[in-house]
């Protein structure tokens, strides 16, 4: 048997499940494009009204790449493990999954891997294409992009997101309903991962602190690495921070799972 042999099917499954709802592919892609276009015009207005070419270290082309890349990174690393857990608890199918000879966390991981592969194809690649087209248009004015350190940063961000989200999904065990918390978490996470505004635009007192929080490691750091804004020592520190958070959430999710599975009471019992 290959390692993780029985888990890899879950990746394939989650991809074919997503593909079976074809309209979703287009709507999802369209939603992401629309959001990026709206942010593009917003920032264009900001740059035009400020009368400056560079704001907080970001030139306008850099800002555009930032917007496209952030949308793509957040879509690629957005783990749905927490939602899967919450959903399984809500409809009670977790009972069915616990009577199978599978490690629950590993299974959810391979499931989430499928979603990310799907997002890579339908958001990552279009975003990459968009950036390449933009580079062609801008010519010499386009920012230099560092793909080589970006890829490991993206991978770390994906893993971190997964274990973080898994912990969050376990909260569903305790609350049995996590809708409200998920909304709150999304707002906080979007803001602190730089999904709306680069952290560089935050007020001084918040910027340094926010940069150390796990959300920055999930979205902001990979994009800053791509834009070449973290180099040398800063780059290594960024990686170290990501690894630190990853280790923490890996440990926490394992611990939380062990404790919570003991007090598990499935709905409808």
């Amino acid at each position, binding site marked *: 048997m290959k390692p993780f*042999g029985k888990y890899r099917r879950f990746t394939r499954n989650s991809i074919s*499940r997503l593909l079976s709802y074809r309209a979703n592919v287009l709507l999802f892609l369209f939603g992401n494009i629309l959001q990026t276009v709206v942010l593009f015009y917003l920032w264009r207005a900001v740059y035009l009204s400020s009368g400056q070419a560079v704001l907080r270290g970001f030139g306008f082309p850099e800002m555009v790449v930032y917007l496209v890349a952030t949308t793509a990174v957040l879509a690629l690393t957005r783990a749905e493990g927490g939602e899967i857990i919450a959903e399984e608890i809500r409809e009670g199918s977790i009972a069915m999954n616990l009577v199978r000879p599978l490690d629950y966390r590993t299974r959810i991981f391979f499931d989430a891997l499928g979603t990310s592969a799907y997002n890579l194809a339908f958001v990552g690649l279009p975003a990459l294409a968009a950036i390449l087209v933009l580079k062609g248009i801008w010519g010499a004015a386009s920012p230099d992009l560092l793909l080589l350190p970006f890829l490991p940063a993206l991978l770390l961000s994906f893993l971190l997101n997964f274990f973080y989200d898994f912990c969050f999904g376990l909260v569903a065990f305790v609350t049995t309903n996590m809708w409200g918390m998920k909304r709150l978490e999304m707002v906080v996470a979007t803001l602190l991962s730089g999904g709306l505004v680069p952290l560089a635009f935050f007020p001084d007192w918040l910027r340094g602190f926010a940069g150390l929080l796990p959300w920055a490691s999930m979205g902001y750091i990979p994009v800053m690495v791509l834009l070449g804004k973290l180099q040398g020592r800063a780059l290594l520190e960024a990686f170290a921070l990501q690894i630190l958070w990853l280790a923490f959430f890996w440990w926490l999710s394992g611990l939380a799972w062990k404790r919570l599975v003991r007090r598990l009471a499935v709905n409808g*019992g």
Partner: protein
Amino acid sequence: MIEVRNLRKTFRTSRRYPGFRGAIKGLFTREVTETKAVDGLSFDIADVEIVGYIGANGAGKSTTIKMMTGTLTPTSGSVLVDGLLPYERRVENARRIGVVFGQRTQLWWDLPLSESFSLLKDIYEVGDADYARRLAFLDEVLGLRDFMLSPVRTLSLGQRMRADLAASLLHQPRILYLDEPTIGLDVVVKDRVREAVKRINREYGTTVILTTHDLDDIEELCTRIIVIDSGRLVWDGSLEELRARYGQRRELRLRLGGTDGGRGAEAAIGTALRALDPGASLGREEEELVLGFDRSRVGLGALVPALMAVAEVLDWSIRETKIEEIVKLIYAGEIRS
């Protein structure tokens, strides 16, 4: 095969307050109540037995099944399944058991049935040859061929249940837990499912634990029944024993004359009946009076004249008590082993 010892499970549940105001109030305060779902159960189940595990809603059946399958940890006591504690070694236990929850499916909603099966083949690490052989057997017993390629969400309830049963058996489990496997099925499919369970038990030596509200399932399948109520064991024995002991009950249905349909005479009938058999029951179903009595205590020859003396009997019929009614009496607390 299964040893249950002094098993207890207590749930702490927080009560919700009714209405919108209640929902707001619930955000701040919470009333925690403790419920004993399972309260000191002990029993053994032997290899290759088919055991009916029954009880009224909320009696603690599902809770016990969950502890046996390893998805719930007991508050105290223990369950030993095939030599291991399922809640301590969930994954290992899961390899040896098959589970069907009648109200849930273990199949993948969006995938064709054949894909769900091959996924389970991978999960349980079933070899190609074994898989092909078992699938052929299950197809023969359950008739799966016609909908093998349909997505599970398009299957009818009967098809889905047959598919679910097959899915729980692909890895040839030593123990099969069936939680209301015939719920909502029509008579033909019920028969098919029961037939399949019988054959699997016979041909593969699978131990079956069956919970159901359909007592025909019990009569068709089980050699032994365990009845629980409020988390406690109230009956554990063979079906024959139960029948021999309580199968003496007969049910007499009377239609009475008079302008009020004989309602005025009910009290007198009750008195006459209990004078002959103190354990008798009396009830009314629309126009009919239903009398339950023990044949060994009072024969019809004595009962009918006694009743006719106090009321005007227009019509009567008699029948044996079905196992269903015996079980009702167990639930009602009138029979204890």
